[in-house]
């Protein structure tokens, strides 16, 4: 069974600080996805990582994938309040995406 684990599950950080969210998964996969969810809303795709060593950046967020370590990271640079949301990583199980429990991020002044 494919397990996807994120940590931390809750993160409160000050504006301007940097932090990294980690996503580990239990079986071999060369594809990993990051999504954002605002309260009461649906999921918005952030990054699609399709190979070992893939790195993608969008604004203050950067995602990377190490398939040998079965690890992906989502790095936040100089956080701003607008980044407050829940972030999910997901891995392809062969027929669908398995999601982690999500990291609830709160950026405070």
């Amino acid at each position: 069974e494919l397990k996807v684990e994120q940590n931390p599950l809750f993160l409160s950080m000050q504006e301007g600080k940097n932090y990294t969210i980690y996503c580990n998964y239990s079986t071999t996969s060369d594809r990993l996805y990051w999504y954002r969810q605002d309260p009461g809303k649906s999921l918005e795709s952030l990054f699609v990582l399709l190979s070992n060593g893939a790195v993608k950046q969008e604004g203050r967020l950067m995602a990377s994938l190490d398939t040998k370590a079965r690890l992906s990271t989502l790095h936040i640079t100089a956080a701003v309040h607008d980044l407050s949301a829940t972030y999910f990583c997901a891995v392809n199980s062969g027929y669908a995406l398995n999601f982690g429990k999500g990291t609830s991020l709160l950026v405070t002044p």
Partner: protein
Amino acid sequence: EADIYQTPRYLVIGTGKKITLECSQTMGHDKMYWYQQDPGMELHLIHYSYGVNSTEKGDLSSESTVSRIRTEHFPLTLESARPSHTSQYLCASSEYKTGTNTGELFFGEGSRLTVL
């Protein structure tokens, strides 16, 4: 970018009622999915489909049923709703062909169901 629509967005009903949650997508995606998500919690796959006339049960056991008569339409039905069915239901779609397929899922806005 996929356009995927769910109705109703919010529904409050009494126990024992039959309900259908509608999901339609306009991008011609073959694969469609239903996930269940309790507030602030992870997503659980309850149904998916590879295409017309294909339906499969997901990882989380569900009393709901689905149908796929048309490519663009993937409704979910609860024959007799109970309070334990209170949740958010998210529909998604993706391409299902080799080559340029990234496997990315595109989600609808969700249907939030409350059963009293």
